[in-house]
Each structure stands twice: as C-alpha cells, then as structure tokens.
C-alpha cells in the first residue's frame, strides 16, 4: 500500500501544477520510478476524461441507475425478436421501448412497431401493466386504434408485443404542418373522441391522452396509441387511500387531469378532460397547463388558483401570426372562430370537477358536432338570446309561436341544469373536504412527531379549518351536509374526540356519504370507542357485570367496526395490516393480533398505530390474566406494553394518546400487583404523574390524562397502603388532579365522581386520624349528587354516596350520635346501585356494610343486632356465590359473624363456633389479600373471642402467641389503629385475668406499663378508653388481691371510663367497667362503701334498662357487691373475683 500512498502524493503534486508543467514532472518521475510514472499518467488520463458513470450529475444527483438502465435497455438494430427483426428505436414510453421492425419472412417488408419491456429490476407493477396493455390492445378492433399483431418474449427474456406501425406524426405537428383550419382540427378531435369512446365502451380508460400519443397517418386517419397506463374500469389500481401514503397513479403531469394529480379514483371523465386539453392545444397552439417543470405541486397550484382560460382569450393575448397562419386565418378571424361555442366547450370539458364536465366523451363529441352544424350546445349557458340566435340561424322562416314554444322548453332545460349544477357542487365540495381532511391529519401527525410541546396551536389551526368546512356547508345548504359531517368527523377523529367523530361520521353515513374514507374512519372510531368501553369495563371487578358491559360494547361498537373494516382492503402494505390486526383484536384473538403487530413493527419499526394497539392488546390481556389469577404473566404483559409504548414515544414525542395509554397502563399495574408497602407504590405513582403530566402538557385542554391520573390515585388508595398517617400524600394530589379536571372541563360525571371520591378520602383520612370529618362528607355528597344529575346511570356515584354514609355513620356512633338516618340514607343509595347493576359486587358489599353498621348500632344501642347481621350476610353471600374468593366479601362475612359472636358472649352464651367461623372467613380473605390489615385485626379479634369464651380454662400459650402474631401483622398495615391498640391491650389483659395468683404481681406491673403506653397515644376513642378503664380495673383488682394499694389504678381507671363515656355516652360496656371499678373502690374505701354501692347499683340499673340482655355481665358484679356488703367476701377475695371477671367483650364501634 505504500505504493498507493506514493501514487496519491504524486497525483496531488502533479494536479497542483499547471498543465504544461505536468509532462515535465512526469518525465522526471519516469527517470526515478518508471512504473509509478506510468500509473500516474494513466491516472491523469482518467482525471482529464472522467467516466460519466462515476460522476454524480448535478440536479439529479444520485440517479445512477436511470443512466445505467437507459443504455442497456436499447436493443441494437438487427436483434431478432420473435418473428421480427428490429430496425431502429422509435421512442420511449414509461416502461417500454418501441422499435421499428419488420417481419423476418415478410417479402413486402411490412413494417411493424415492436414494444419491448425495458428491464425493470423487480417491478411487478411495471410487468403486470405491460401485460395489461397487451391484453387491452388485443381486445380492440377500431379503425382509430393500432391493432395488435403478435406478442412474446425476447431472447433476453423481456416481454414484447408487435403493433400495426402508424406511419405518421403526432396530431399537433400534423395539424400545423398541414395548416388545418379550426373546423378541420375540430374534426380530428371528434375522431379521437370516437376512438376514446370506443375504449370506454370496452371498459378501458386511456389515462394518458396527449398529442404524442395521438398520431395521424399518411392517409389522415387518427390513431390512438399507447395504452401503457390504461386501466380497465373496475380493476383495482387506484385507490384514494393510496394518496395518503404518497402513492398515486401514473400520469404525464402536464397532461394530467386534476383527479390524477390528486390521486383520486379515475373515471372516463379524466379521459374527457384530457380530450379537452388536446382540443385546447390544437386551437391555441399552446399547452393548457403552463408549467415550469413537471412538479405536480405546481400543476395543482395552477389548477387551484387560476380558472381555465378561454381559448379565444389566449388567442387574443398571444396568437401570433404564425398560429393564425397555420390555421389558415388571420389573428382576428381565428379569435372570432374560437370565441363563443368553442370557448364554452373547452371550459366545460376542462371543469375542475368531473361532474361538471360532459357526462361522456361522446357528449363532448356531440357538442363538437353541434358546433360544426351551428346548433345550440349543451355546454352553453341557456341564455335566451343565444338559443334564439342559433335557432334563427337555422330556421329563419319559423313563426313566433315557435319562439314561444322554445321558451317553454328553455324553462325545463333551466331546471335540469339547476339540478346538474347542484350535483356538481356537492361532488366538488366533497373532493375539497377530502383534501382538507388529509391536510388536517398531516398537521396533527407532524405535531405529534415534534419534541414534547403544547400542541394547542396545531389543534387550533385544525379547528379553524374544520370551522371553515362547516361554514361552507352552512352557506351551501343541506346538500353539502353529509360531506361536511364526514370531513369534520374525520378531523375530530384525528383530534382524538372519538364520540364527536362517531356522531358526525354516522350522520354523514346516514346522509348517504360513501367511500373508503368513511368506512375506514368509522371502522377506526368504533374500534376506539369499543376499546374505551373495554378499558372502563376493566375497572369493574365483578365478572358478571363486566361481561354485561363488554357485551353491550360489542354490539354497539365492535360489530359495526368489524363490518366497516372488513369492507375495505387497503393496498398499502403498512396500512393493510391495521384492519387485520384490529379485527383479530376485536374478535378476541389477541395472540393473533399481536403476531400481526409484531410483523408490522419489525417491517415498519416506527409505525405508531402498531405501538399503540400493541400496548392496548397487552394491557387488555394482562387484565384477563389478572382475572384468572396469572399475576406473574399479567405483569410480564404489562411490562411488554410499557416497552412498546416507550418505543412509540421515542418517535411520537408529542403523542398525547401514547402518554395516556401509558398512564392507563399504570392504573392496571396498580390493580394487578400486590403491594407489600407504601414505598413500593410511590415510584409508580411518580411515574404516572410524570406521564399524565406530559399528556396534559401536550393537550392542556384534555381531561382524559387528568382523569386517568385521578384513577391511579384511586387505585393507590384502594391498595390500602395509604390510609393511615400518609393518607394525604394521596388525597392532596388527587384533589389537585380533580380540580384541574374540573377546570379543563367539560362537565362529566366521571370528573365529579372523582371529586366526590377525593372529598370522601379526605374525610376518611380525618376520621381515621381521630378528627371529625369536617365538611368533606357533605362536599362529597354534593359532588356525587351532581354527578348523578350528569349521568344517572353511572353506578359508581351511588356507591360513593353509600361509602360516605358508611364512614359517617361509623363516626357518628363512635361519638354517641344516632346514625340511623345516615344508615338508612346510605342503604337507599346502595340499593339503587344494586338495582342499577344487579351483578355489581361493590354495590352489594356496600349494602352488606350498611347492614353491619346497623348491627353495630343496634349492639351499641342495646337492641338485638342479629337481624341486621343476618341481612348483611345475605347481601354478601350473593356476591360470594358468583365469586367465592372475593376478599372484600369474605372479610365482611367475618365482620358480621364476629359481631354476632361478640353479642353472644356479652349475653353470657358460648360464641366459640362463631369465633371459628369468623376466623375462617378472615383467613380466606387473607389468602386473596395477604396484606389486608383489617383482616388481620379480624383474625386477632376472632382469636380473642375464642379465648374469651372459655373463662374457666387456662390460656393455651399457643393461642396467645397466634393472637399476638395477628396483632403484629395488623399493626404493620397501619400507622396507629384504635382497633389494633384495643385488641393488643385486651390480649395482654386476658393473660392477667387468667393468671394463677403467683404470677399476678409481675404481670400486673407489665400491664400497667402497657396501659401507660397506650394512654400516651391519646387516641381519643371511646373504645380504647374503655379498654384502658378495663385494664386499670384488672390492675386495681390484682392489687387488692395481693394486698397492695389499688388507689392509683382505681383513679386512672375511673378517669378513662369517664373519658370514654364523654366521647360516647352510649358505650354501655364502659358503664359496666365503671360499675366494676366502683365495686373495687367500695371494697377499698370502707367509709364511702355504702354511697359507692348505691351509685353502683343505680348505674347497673341504667345499663340493664338500656340493654336488658346485660344481666350476664352485670349480675356477677351485683352478686359480689351483695357479698361484700354482707361481709361474706373480703376485699382480697373480691379483688381476685374482679381480676378474673372477663367483663364486656371489647367490641363497640
């Protein structure tokens, strides 16, 4: 390689020299290194005479292949092709070369034209078009169309066919050289028109009519040539959607019809237009489309901006003598000949809107014939003067009566014309709408590709464009309505307003608007709505209700979506897969849909619809897996969905829809994952906030992402990880999200529902923290009620009201307020929710919860709670029949049974079986939701109840350990819980109650410390204060028993009892503990014994009055009091008895 380096250096040196000094340099080099000098000289030759192939051409840089192709495609003269020998190249078509040739065996040297396909690399389209041309020409038999002679394959393997050779010249050149008059030229056009009409009758559109394709032979006969891009009517090769992807049909731009330029479906009207162009050019000697280049955009502009110029005007402006001369006229004569009828014919033939042209080529031909015969034209506006002039021209002797008759006829002609005009206007408008819609879609697509930004501006521009369509339709009357609805509907679809889009598109469809575009749009929009419904159905945990909702969605949206998608078969690869994928998705073949998407994404990695649909499918499948309990698999799908979205967002950095899908994915992820603690949830919430924030940034006026974020908070709350202490880390941002949603609008029941929920959460948090609910529950109620007025069928609102009632009534009864009214109100709402959606588990569990509240209240108020608990069990069992493992339901069964058990033990009956049943249900609930603190409290409570039931038996250490373990687990779920603290205390207390005398002192000391600690928590709850009173009662009793001073414990016990009753005067269990405390005081303080016993008996009477079944609890105390009074029981004995006294079960809400 050192050699090359030297060569390069030498080359650089020598090219830097002036030409004359180069040879000198070379000579010097030759002396030192002849070989190098030789190479250098070759190099210089190459430099001076560069190979054209290696030089990128300016202007068309990089088009290396077209050069390469052109050369090689030409077959040399003498090449034998089938029966023919090529003589010379005649011309070049879009994909074929035409040669002059002779039949090898033909003595008369009959010449033919042989058309050979130029090699086309791999172009299937080119080859099939070539075959089609041959097929078309073979079917023709018309004097003005060259006939097919033969066809086959060249030795090189290229297809060819032989045609009659037209010995002549292009029509324009012929007309000028022969100096044809205007009339003669018109006659030629008539002949072309007849050939064209013949083709049309054979269901072929030429599509490429232009002077160079129309020859006139030596005998003066017109020959229509080159059906190379002709199309058989009804065959599928042009398709409006193709233009969306930049396809389009082949054409010669300067002779293209507007619909060709716009890539619209072509009809015979396009050929008619091109015949008009030919007429224009033959009359004026000038092309109609004056263009700088063959850039379709410039043609488009021209057609849009300038109306067709009348040929006579063109001639007035620039008809030189030469143009007139070649038409055997003076300039003035020429203008005069063309002005009027020919102007009108050309204007009509060149109408932008196909419907305003001649209906057929033969109609144009007929008008040209009328012109030659001086008859009135169909193209001419029916001015009376014109008609009469024409008529008089032909029938100078007609009577006045005739004139009158003519006027009548003219009247009806006018009406017919009016109708025609209207139809034309509609069609023209439709086309404009179609184009406008495409632009709208492009603007929005581009906007979503830009870096993260607020797209309001782009959306505003789009809205303005849609408003323009609307305004035009408004002015134009009802006939334009369907097209406008279609255009605006598609715009709304692109904007992501699916409901509005659906309504408009349906209206357009109803109005008779048809086409691939609307089918496509309807298919997409119904699919979107269907999937939206699915996403909402996903939030419903109850299987029956969910199925119901899904079935409605299938009928309403999925089936019509499938019907529309199936009716179209787009030709564009990238798009063709979309309906296939959507159809599979909608039919529930998720795996198949994913396969299609995978294929699309590997071929078109940046196709965003595929990304979006993939994410949706995976999220949907994850949900299905979640329902069947395959949580791990569901998690994997959600992860994959996340990856798909991430790759989509790499490109669509301002695609709000993708961000929303990501946010929704987080929502599902929250639901399917079991969260051990709060910290594991926090990053997820932060991500959801980030993603929804981006969506909101892109579309600040869009409520969906904000609503979705609110749902994420709701799911986070539902996990139960935030109820204690940290509740506000959820309620505050959730509240902010809801307020934002309210600001963005529009008024939607979902928004007000979330508002109600956020108020409820706030109130709930306050209640848990021992504060009053404040106004939050009132505000929540107002919000839910407003939401109901917005949509009375949105069941979640009733449920919300029931929730509020449940929590509020609980708070009321804990504070001694009669909650009956609230309970009944809540029940009514829960019942409405159940009526609305009978299968909905949440509604039924809320109803059950409501009955349980009633049970608690009955228990507190001293009436029999059993009937309420039984009804609760009925309600919740209806849910468990459908879904036997539903944790929330199992837990409620546990609560109801536990309530029954507590009532039974306080009535002196054995609750063991109920304790066992409650325990079993809580444990089943925990199988489903292992971290549910409420269930763990239930387990501890049920174990406590079981031990409580056997006061005569010593405590089994094993039972105690299990109860303590349950309390420990419950404690982990909550920051501080009244119930946890109560039960923890009561378990310790039970140990002291059952202890042998030898252990009493040590245990009492321990209990006292525990009591101090619990009191220090200052929970301000009647239940805890009651347990504290009970605790000091046992400690005081123990002191009395062992002979130490019970006074401090007695004092504290009474303080806590008073506190408990101050919080909740209805707490009769506290009243009973107070009786016990007073009894101990009476034993200790001999001087006040009588008065204390008196008060004690009065209290006992009151308790019995309020709760007659309290005898089992009160009687032992009264009996001991009697024994003390009579001296049959000493203080120590009383102490032991009251230490062992179980007391009321710690269960009063």
């Amino acid at each position, binding site marked *: 390689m050192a050699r090359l380096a030297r060569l390069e250096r030498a080359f650089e040196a020598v090219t830097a020299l002036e030409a004359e000094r180069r040879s000198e340099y070379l000579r010097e080099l030759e002396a030192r290194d002849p070989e190098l000098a030789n190479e250098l000289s070759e190099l210089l030759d190459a430099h001076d005479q560069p190979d054209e192939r290696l030089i990128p051409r300016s202007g068309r840089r990089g088009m290396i292949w077209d050069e390469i*192709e052109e050369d090689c495609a030409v077959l040399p003269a003498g090449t034998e092709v089938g029966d023919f020998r090529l003589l010379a190249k005649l011309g070049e078509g879009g994909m074929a070369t035409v040669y002059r040739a002779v039949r090898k065996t033909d003595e008369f040297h009959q010449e033919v034209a042989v058309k050979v396909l130029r090699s086309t690399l791999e172009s299937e389209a080119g080859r099939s078009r070539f075959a089609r041309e041959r097929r078309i020409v073979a079917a023709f038999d018309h004097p003005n169309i060259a006939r097919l002679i033969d066809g086959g394959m060249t030795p090189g*393997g290229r297809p060819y066919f032989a045609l009659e050779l037209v010995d002549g010249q292009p029509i324009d050149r012929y007309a000028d050289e022969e100096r044809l008059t205007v009339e003669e030229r018109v006659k030629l056009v008539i002949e072309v028109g007849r050939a064209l009409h013949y083709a049309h009758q054979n269901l072929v559109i030429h599509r490429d009519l232009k002077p160079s394709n129309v020859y006139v032979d030596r005998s003066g006969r017109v020959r229509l040539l080159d059906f190379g891009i002709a199309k058989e009517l009804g065959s599928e090769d042009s398709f409006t959607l193709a233009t969306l992807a930049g396809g389009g049909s082949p054409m010669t731009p300067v002779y293209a019809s507007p619909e060709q330029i716009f890539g619209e479906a072509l009809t015979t009207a396009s050929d008619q237009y091109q015949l008009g162009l030919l007429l224009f050019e033959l009359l004026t000697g000038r092309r109609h489309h004056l263009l700088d280049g063959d850039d379709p955009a410039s043609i488009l502009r021209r057609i849009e901006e300038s109306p067709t110029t009348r040929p006579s005007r063109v001639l007035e402006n620039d008809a030189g003598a030469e143009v007139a001369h070649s038409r055997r006229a003076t300039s003035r004569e020429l203008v005069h000949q063309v002005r009027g009828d020919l102007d009108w014919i050309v204007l009509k033939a060149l109408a932008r809107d196909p419907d305003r042209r001649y209906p057929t080529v033969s109609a144009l031909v007929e008008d040209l014939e009328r012109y030659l015969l001086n008859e009135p034209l169909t193209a001419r506006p029916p001015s009376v003067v014109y008609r009469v002039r024409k008529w008089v021209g032909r029938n100078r002797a007609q009577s006045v009566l005739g004139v009158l008759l003519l006027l009548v006829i003219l009247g009806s002609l006018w009406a017919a014309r009016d109708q025609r005009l209207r139809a034309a206007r509609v069609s023209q408008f439709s086309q404009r709408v179609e184009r406008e819609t495409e632009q709208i879609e492009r603007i929005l697509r581009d906007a979503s590709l830009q870096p993260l930004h607020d797209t309001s501006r782009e959306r505003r521009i789009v809205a303005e464009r849609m408003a323009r369509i609307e305004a035009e339709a408004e002015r134009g009357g009802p006939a334009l309505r369907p097209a406008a609805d279609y255009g605006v509907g598609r715009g709304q679809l692109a904007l992501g307003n699916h409901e509005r889009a659906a309504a408009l598109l349906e209206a357009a469809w109803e109005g008779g608007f048809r086409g691939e575009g609307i089918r496509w749009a309807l298919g997409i929009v119904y699919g979107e709505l269907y999937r939206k419904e699915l996403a909402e159905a996903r939030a419903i945990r109850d299987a029956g209700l969910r199925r119901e909702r899904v079935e409605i969605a299938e009928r309403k949206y999925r089936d019509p979506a499938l019907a529309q998608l199936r009716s179209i078969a787009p030709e564009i690869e990238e798009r063709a897969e979309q309906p296939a994928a959507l159809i599979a998705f909608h039919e529930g073949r998720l795996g198949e849909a994913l396969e299609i998407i995978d294929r699309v994404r590997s071929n078109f990695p940046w196709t965003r619809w595929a990304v979006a649909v993939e994410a949706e499918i995976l999220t949907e499948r994850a949900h299905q897996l979640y329902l069947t309990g395959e949580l791990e698999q569901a998690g994997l799908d959600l992860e994959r969905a996340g990856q798909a979205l991430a790759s989509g967002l790499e490109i669509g950095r301002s695609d709000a829809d993708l961000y929303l899908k990501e946010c929704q994915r987080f929502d599902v992820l929250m639901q399917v994952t079991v969260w051990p603690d709060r910290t594991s949830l926090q990053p997820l919430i932060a991500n959801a906030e980030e993603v929804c924030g981006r969506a909101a940034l892109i579309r600040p006026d869009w409520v969906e992402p904000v609503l979705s974020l609110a749902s994420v908070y709701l799911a986070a709350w539902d996990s139960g990880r935030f109820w204690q202490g940290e509740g506000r880390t959820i309620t505050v941002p959730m509240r902010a999200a809801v307020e934002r949603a309210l600001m963005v609008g529009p008024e939607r029941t979902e928004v007000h529902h979330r508002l109600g929920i956020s108020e409820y959460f706030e109130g709930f948090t306050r209640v848990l923290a021992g504060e009053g609910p404040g106004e939050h529950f009132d505000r929540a109620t107002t919000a839910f009620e407003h939401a109901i007025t917005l949509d009375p069928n949105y069941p979640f609102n009733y449920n919300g009201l029931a929730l509020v009632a449940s929590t509020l009534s609980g708070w009321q009864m804990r504070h001694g307020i009669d909650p009956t009214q609230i309970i009944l109100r809540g029940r009514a709402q829960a019942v409405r929710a159940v009526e609305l959606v009978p299968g909905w588990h949440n509604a039924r569990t809320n109803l059950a919860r409501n009955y349980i509240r009633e049970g608690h209240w009955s228990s507190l108020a001293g009436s029999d709670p059993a009937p309420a608990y039984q009804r609760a069990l009925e309600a919740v069992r209806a849910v468990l029949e459908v879904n036997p493992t539903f944790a929330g339901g199992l837990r409620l069964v546990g609560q109801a049974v536990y309530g029954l058990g507590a009532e039974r033990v306080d009535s002196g009956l054995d609750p063991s079986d109920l304790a066992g049943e409650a325990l079993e249900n809580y444990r089943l609930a925990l199988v489903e939701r292992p971290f549910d603190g409420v269930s763990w409290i239930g387990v501890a409570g049920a174990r406590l109840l079981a031990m409580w039931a056997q006061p005569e038996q010593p405590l089994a250490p094993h039972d105690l350990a299990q109860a303590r373990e349950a309390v420990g687990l419950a404690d982990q779920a909550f920051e501080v819980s009244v119930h946890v603290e109560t039960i923890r205390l009561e378990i310790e207390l039970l140990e002291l109650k059952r202890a042998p005398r030898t252990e009493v002192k040590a245990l009492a000391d321990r209990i006292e410390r525990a009591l101090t600690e619990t009191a220090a928590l200052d929970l301000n709850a009647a239940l805890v204060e009651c347990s504290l009173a009970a605790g000091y009662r046992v400690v005081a009793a123990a002191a009395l028993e062992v002979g130490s001073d019970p006074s401090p414990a007695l004092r504290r016990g009474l303080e806590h009892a008073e506190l408990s009753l101050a919080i909740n005067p209805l707490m009769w269990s506290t009243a009973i503990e107070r009786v016990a405390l007073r009894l101990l005081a009476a034993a200790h303080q001999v001087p006040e014994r009588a008065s204390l016993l008196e008060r004690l008996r009065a209290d006992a009477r009151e308790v019995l009055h309020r709760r007659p079944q309290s005898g089992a609890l009160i009687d032992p105390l009264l009996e001991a009091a009697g024994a003390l009074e009579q001296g049959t029981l000493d203080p120590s004995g009383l102490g032991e008895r009251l230490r062992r006294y179980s007391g009321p079960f710690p269960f009063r809400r």
Partner: protein
Amino acid sequence: MTREQGLEITQLLQAWQGGDRAAFDQLVPLVYQDLRRVAKAQLRRDRAGWTLDTTGLVNEAYMRLVGGGGVEWNDRGHFLAVAARAMRQVVIEYARRRVASKRGGGVRPGTLDERVIGIDSHAEWLISLNQALERLTAYRERLARVVECRFFAGLSNSETAEALGTSERTVKRDWTFARSWLQKELGA
C-alpha cells in the same frame, strides 16, 4: 427486532460519535434493511419508471429515523455516512442478482408474468467497482467512504464533508483522486 429499532440506531449513532468504531458496523445492517425496503417500495410504486433516486432514498430513511425533527444536525451527518454504506450494499446486491440471473438464465419464453431481469453490462461494472473499492479501503478507508457518499448515496461535497466529519476541501481532494484511480483500475 420487535422492539425499538429506532432507539437502537440512535444509541449506536451516539456510540459511534463517542468514538466506538464497532458501532458503525452494527449500524449499517440496520439502515440497510430499511433502505432496501424503501427501495423496493419505490420500485413497486413505479411512478417515475424504474429508476432509483438514491439521494431521495437516503433522505427518506433519515426522515423515518428521526421522525421529522429534533435530532441534532450532527446526527444527520453521521447517519448519512452510514446510509451511504448501506446504499452501496443495496446497489451491489442488485447488481449481483442481475449478473447471477444473466448467467443462470432459466427464463421460460412466452410468459409475460415470468419474473425477468434484463442483461446489464453495468451490473458487472458495478461489481468490479465494488472490488476496487475494497482495495481502496485497505489503503485508506476515508477514500472509500468518500466514494460511497458521493457516488452511491449521491451526496454533495459539503454533505459528504458533514457525513465524514472532515472539510469540504479534503472531500474534493479525496474524490478527485479516488475517482481517477477507480477509473484507471476499472479501465485496466
């Protein structure tokens, strides 16, 4: 290849920019695949006949990559260099196939629908060019790169300079030498 081809390319581009030369070789096949598909689509579309607008292809591939903006101008240059190499592969692949079909024959006469590929003397020329380029690469890689950019991708001098991260003057000098040398080699 279901996931994030675009991301992969971006990352590789960055790695390459950061001096990781292996990244270039990993990039080429990724871009090649895309170019080839676009080329086929362009041929199938058959609007302007059968010609391949290589500059257009390269630009189209680039637009597809960046999705319409945001990527540093710097990245575009680097991408062009990769695309030029990929373009060379596309072109050579076609040329090889044409030569192979010419040798293999096997075209049944008389059927119009038969897949046929014409004789093309340039295909052989292109293959020789490719081989000469290999020799040039062995000498000084940049020369071959310049040829890829100028000839195969149809980039201008300034675009080539941008793609290769060098000056326009250097590109001009390299191109003059490389072109003359290749011509000499191919003429021999």
